[in-house]
Protein backbone atom coordinates (compact mmCIF):
# COMPACT_ATOMS: atom_id res chain seq x y z
CA UNK A 1 0.00 0.00 0.00
CA UNK A 2 1.21 3.48 -0.69
CA UNK A 3 0.33 6.72 0.97
CA UNK A 4 0.81 9.62 -1.40
CA UNK A 5 2.28 12.90 -0.27
CA UNK A 6 2.08 11.94 3.36
CA UNK A 7 4.09 10.27 6.09
CA UNK A 8 3.72 6.60 6.86
CA UNK A 9 0.88 5.67 9.13
CA UNK A 10 -0.40 2.14 8.98
CA UNK A 11 1.12 1.60 5.53
CA UNK A 12 4.71 0.62 4.83
CA UNK A 13 5.45 3.11 2.07
CA UNK A 14 4.94 6.83 1.90
CA UNK A 15 5.57 8.94 -1.16
CA UNK A 16 6.10 12.63 -1.75
CA UNK A 17 6.42 14.29 -5.14
CA UNK A 18 7.85 17.80 -5.28
CA UNK A 19 9.26 20.19 -7.86
CA UNK A 20 12.96 19.40 -8.29
CA UNK A 21 14.17 22.68 -6.90
CA UNK A 22 16.14 23.70 -3.85
CA UNK A 23 13.05 25.35 -2.41
CA UNK A 24 11.59 21.86 -1.92
CA UNK A 25 14.27 20.90 0.59
CA UNK A 26 12.28 21.77 3.69
CA UNK A 27 9.20 19.86 2.52
CA UNK A 28 11.34 16.79 1.80
CA UNK A 29 13.30 16.88 5.05
CA UNK A 30 10.11 17.29 7.08
CA UNK A 31 8.58 14.36 5.20
CA UNK A 32 11.52 12.06 5.85
CA UNK A 33 11.77 13.18 9.46
CA UNK A 34 8.13 12.22 9.98
CA UNK A 35 8.72 8.82 8.35
CA UNK A 36 11.86 8.17 10.38
CA UNK A 37 10.24 9.14 13.66
CA UNK A 38 7.24 6.97 12.86
CA UNK A 39 9.61 4.08 12.16
CA UNK A 40 11.20 4.53 15.57
CA UNK A 41 14.41 6.30 14.64
CA UNK A 42 15.86 8.48 17.40
CA UNK A 43 16.09 12.22 16.85
CA UNK A 44 19.84 12.27 16.17
CA UNK A 45 19.54 9.63 13.44
CA UNK A 46 16.52 11.45 12.05
CA UNK A 47 18.62 14.62 11.70
CA UNK A 48 21.19 12.59 9.79
CA UNK A 49 18.53 11.38 7.37
CA UNK A 50 17.32 14.95 6.87
CA UNK A 51 20.89 15.85 5.96
CA UNK A 52 21.04 12.98 3.45
CA UNK A 53 17.79 14.10 1.83
CA UNK A 54 18.95 17.69 1.50
CA UNK A 55 22.26 16.69 -0.09
CA UNK A 56 20.64 14.29 -2.57
CA UNK A 57 17.91 16.71 -3.61
CA UNK A 58 20.34 19.57 -4.14
CA UNK A 59 22.52 17.35 -6.33
CA UNK A 60 19.54 16.12 -8.37
CA UNK A 61 18.51 19.73 -9.01
CA UNK A 62 22.05 20.64 -9.99
CA UNK A 63 23.03 17.67 -12.13
CA UNK A 64 19.92 15.79 -13.30
CA UNK A 65 17.86 18.83 -14.14
CA UNK A 66 20.64 21.42 -14.41
CA UNK A 67 18.19 23.97 -13.01
CA UNK A 68 15.55 23.04 -15.61
CA UNK A 69 12.04 22.37 -14.29
CA UNK A 70 11.10 18.84 -13.29
CA UNK A 71 9.86 16.69 -10.45
CA UNK A 72 11.33 14.34 -7.93
CA UNK A 73 9.54 11.60 -6.07
CA UNK A 74 10.74 10.60 -2.65
CA UNK A 75 9.61 7.21 -1.36
CA UNK A 76 10.10 6.08 2.18
CA UNK A 77 9.54 2.39 2.93
CA UNK A 78 9.84 0.55 6.20
CA UNK A 79 10.85 -2.93 5.09
CA UNK A 80 11.04 -4.52 8.52
CA UNK A 81 11.46 -3.50 12.13
CA UNK A 82 15.06 -2.42 11.54
CA UNK A 83 15.33 -0.91 8.07
CA UNK A 84 14.10 2.13 6.21
CA UNK A 85 14.54 2.52 2.45
CA UNK A 86 14.68 5.96 0.87
CA UNK A 87 14.21 6.13 -2.90
CA UNK A 88 14.79 9.25 -4.95
CA UNK A 89 13.20 9.05 -8.40
CA UNK A 90 13.54 11.71 -11.07
CA UNK A 91 13.23 11.96 -14.83
CA UNK A 92 16.16 14.25 -15.41
CA UNK A 93 19.33 13.49 -17.31
CA UNK A 94 21.12 10.29 -16.34
CA UNK A 95 22.81 11.13 -13.07
CA UNK A 96 24.43 8.85 -10.53
CA UNK A 97 25.36 10.80 -7.43
CA UNK A 98 27.47 7.88 -6.27
CA UNK A 99 29.98 8.44 -9.07
CA UNK A 100 30.69 12.08 -8.21
CA UNK A 101 34.34 12.36 -7.19
CA UNK A 102 34.73 13.14 -3.48
CA UNK A 103 36.96 16.06 -2.48
CA UNK A 104 40.32 15.32 -0.91
CA UNK A 105 39.68 15.86 2.79
CA UNK A 106 43.23 15.14 3.89
CA UNK A 107 44.91 18.19 2.38
CA UNK A 108 45.83 21.44 4.08
CA UNK A 109 43.24 24.22 4.40
CA UNK A 110 44.76 26.15 1.50
CA UNK A 111 44.18 23.17 -0.79
CA UNK A 112 40.78 22.16 0.57
CA UNK A 113 37.94 22.39 -1.93
CA UNK A 114 35.15 24.73 -0.79
CA UNK A 115 32.22 22.53 -1.81
CA UNK A 116 31.56 18.93 -2.73
CA UNK A 117 30.93 17.63 0.77
CA UNK A 118 27.40 16.40 0.10
CA UNK A 119 28.42 13.06 -1.40
CA UNK A 120 30.84 12.05 1.38
CA UNK A 121 28.14 12.91 3.91
CA UNK A 122 25.53 10.79 2.10
CA UNK A 123 27.91 7.84 1.79
CA UNK A 124 28.86 8.02 5.46
CA UNK A 125 25.34 8.35 6.81
CA UNK A 126 23.58 5.50 4.98
CA UNK A 127 24.22 1.78 5.20
CA UNK A 128 23.87 0.91 1.52
CA UNK A 129 23.42 3.02 -1.61
CA UNK A 130 22.58 1.84 -5.12
CA UNK A 131 21.71 3.64 -8.34
CA UNK A 132 19.95 2.40 -11.44
CA UNK A 133 18.58 3.97 -14.59
CA UNK A 134 15.16 2.61 -15.58
CA UNK A 135 13.82 4.00 -18.84
CA UNK A 136 13.96 7.75 -18.39
CA UNK A 137 14.19 7.58 -14.63
CA UNK A 138 17.10 7.90 -12.21
CA UNK A 139 16.48 5.80 -9.11
CA UNK A 140 18.72 6.20 -6.10
CA UNK A 141 18.01 3.70 -3.33
CA UNK A 142 19.42 4.28 0.14
CA UNK A 143 19.03 1.84 3.00
CA UNK A 144 19.36 2.89 6.60
CA UNK A 145 19.25 0.74 9.67
CA UNK A 146 17.68 1.60 12.98
CA UNK A 147 20.49 2.13 15.50
CA UNK A 148 20.86 -0.69 18.01
Amino acid sequence: MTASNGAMSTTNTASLTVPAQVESVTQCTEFVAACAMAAGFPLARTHELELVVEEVLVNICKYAYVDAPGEMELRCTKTDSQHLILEFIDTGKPFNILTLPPPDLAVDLDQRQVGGLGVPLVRALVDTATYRREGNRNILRLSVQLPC
Partner: protein
Amino acid sequence: MECKVREIANVSLIQVLGRIDHTTAKAFEDALSPHMAGCTGEDKKLLLDFSGVTFISSAGLRVLMIAAKRCRKQNGKMVLAALQPVIQEVFQISRFDTVFEIFPTVRAALEAISPAAASAYDGQ
Protein backbone atom coordinates in the same frame (compact mmCIF):
# COMPACT_ATOMS: atom_id res chain seq x y z
CA MET B 1 18.91 30.40 11.93
CA GLU B 2 19.80 33.31 14.14
CA CYS B 3 23.07 34.85 15.30
CA LYS B 4 23.54 36.78 18.53
CA VAL B 5 26.78 38.69 18.96
CA ARG B 6 28.55 39.77 22.13
CA GLU B 7 31.80 41.66 22.22
CA ILE B 8 34.03 40.41 25.04
CA ALA B 9 37.42 42.13 25.20
CA ASN B 10 39.07 41.33 21.85
CA VAL B 11 36.66 38.50 21.01
CA SER B 12 33.43 38.60 19.06
CA LEU B 13 31.36 35.79 20.53
CA ILE B 14 28.79 34.76 17.94
CA GLN B 15 26.09 32.48 19.26
CA VAL B 16 24.54 30.60 16.33
CA LEU B 17 21.07 29.18 16.82
CA GLY B 18 18.97 26.79 14.74
CA ARG B 19 19.55 25.07 11.42
CA ILE B 20 22.22 25.95 8.88
CA ASP B 21 20.97 24.38 5.67
CA HIS B 22 20.49 25.37 2.05
CA THR B 23 17.68 27.75 2.96
CA THR B 24 19.57 29.53 5.76
CA ALA B 25 23.22 29.31 4.67
CA LYS B 26 23.10 32.69 2.93
CA ALA B 27 21.71 34.35 6.08
CA PHE B 28 24.50 32.69 8.08
CA GLU B 29 27.09 33.96 5.63
CA ASP B 30 25.63 37.48 5.77
CA ALA B 31 25.61 37.43 9.57
CA LEU B 32 29.21 36.26 9.72
CA SER B 33 30.62 38.52 7.03
CA PRO B 34 30.73 41.85 8.91
CA HIS B 35 32.76 40.25 11.68
CA MET B 36 35.24 38.69 9.29
CA ALA B 37 36.64 42.00 8.09
CA GLY B 38 38.19 42.92 11.42
CA CYS B 39 39.33 39.43 12.26
CA THR B 40 43.05 40.00 11.89
CA GLY B 41 45.87 39.22 14.27
CA GLU B 42 45.34 39.84 17.97
CA ASP B 43 43.02 42.82 17.61
CA LYS B 44 39.88 40.81 16.97
CA LYS B 45 39.18 37.11 17.21
CA LEU B 46 35.99 35.21 16.43
CA LEU B 47 34.40 32.52 18.54
CA LEU B 48 31.38 30.69 17.19
CA ASP B 49 29.22 29.20 19.93
CA PHE B 50 27.55 26.24 18.21
CA SER B 51 25.70 24.92 21.25
CA GLY B 52 22.42 26.05 19.70
CA VAL B 53 23.06 24.64 16.21
CA THR B 54 20.85 21.61 15.67
CA PHE B 55 21.60 20.89 12.00
CA ILE B 56 24.27 21.71 9.45
CA SER B 57 24.45 20.58 5.83
CA SER B 58 27.13 21.00 3.18
CA ALA B 59 25.73 24.48 2.48
CA GLY B 60 26.65 25.54 6.00
CA LEU B 61 30.02 23.81 5.81
CA ARG B 62 30.70 25.74 2.64
CA VAL B 63 30.20 29.05 4.48
CA LEU B 64 32.54 27.91 7.25
CA MET B 65 35.18 26.78 4.77
CA ILE B 66 35.16 30.15 3.00
CA ALA B 67 35.45 31.88 6.39
CA ALA B 68 38.34 29.64 7.42
CA LYS B 69 40.23 30.35 4.23
CA ARG B 70 39.64 34.06 4.60
CA CYS B 71 40.86 33.99 8.20
CA ARG B 72 44.07 32.28 7.25
CA LYS B 73 44.64 34.72 4.42
CA GLN B 74 44.32 37.73 6.72
CA ASN B 75 46.08 36.07 9.66
CA GLY B 76 42.88 35.98 11.68
CA LYS B 77 41.67 33.59 14.36
CA MET B 78 38.27 31.92 14.33
CA VAL B 79 37.44 28.98 16.59
CA LEU B 80 34.30 27.02 17.43
CA ALA B 81 32.88 25.75 20.67
CA ALA B 82 30.20 23.49 22.12
CA LEU B 83 29.22 21.40 19.11
CA GLN B 84 26.27 19.08 19.64
CA PRO B 85 26.97 15.38 18.90
CA VAL B 86 25.16 15.40 15.55
CA ILE B 87 27.24 18.41 14.43
CA GLN B 88 30.42 16.79 15.73
CA GLU B 89 29.69 13.78 13.55
CA VAL B 90 29.25 15.94 10.44
CA PHE B 91 32.54 17.69 11.25
CA GLN B 92 34.31 14.35 11.63
CA ILE B 93 32.99 12.99 8.33
CA SER B 94 33.95 16.15 6.45
CA ARG B 95 37.24 16.48 8.38
CA PHE B 96 36.25 19.95 9.54
CA ASP B 97 37.63 18.96 12.92
CA THR B 98 41.05 19.43 11.30
CA VAL B 99 40.12 22.76 9.71
CA PHE B 100 39.05 24.49 12.93
CA GLU B 101 40.15 24.51 16.52
CA ILE B 102 37.12 23.21 18.40
CA PHE B 103 36.60 23.50 22.13
CA PRO B 104 34.10 21.70 24.36
CA THR B 105 32.80 24.92 25.93
CA VAL B 106 32.76 28.66 25.27
CA ARG B 107 34.74 29.19 28.47
CA ALA B 108 37.47 26.79 27.34
CA ALA B 109 37.68 28.50 23.95
CA LEU B 110 37.99 31.94 25.50
CA GLU B 111 40.71 30.74 27.87
CA ALA B 112 42.67 29.41 24.90
CA ILE B 113 42.38 32.38 22.56
CA SER B 114 42.12 35.32 24.95
CA PRO B 115 42.65 35.11 28.72
CA ALA B 116 41.44 38.72 28.96
CA ALA B 117 38.16 37.77 27.33
CA ALA B 118 37.87 34.71 29.58
CA SER B 119 38.24 36.93 32.65
CA ALA B 120 35.68 39.37 31.33
CA TYR B 121 33.33 36.47 30.54
CA ASP B 122 33.64 35.19 34.11
CA GLY B 123 32.80 38.62 35.43
CA GLN B 124 29.60 38.97 33.44
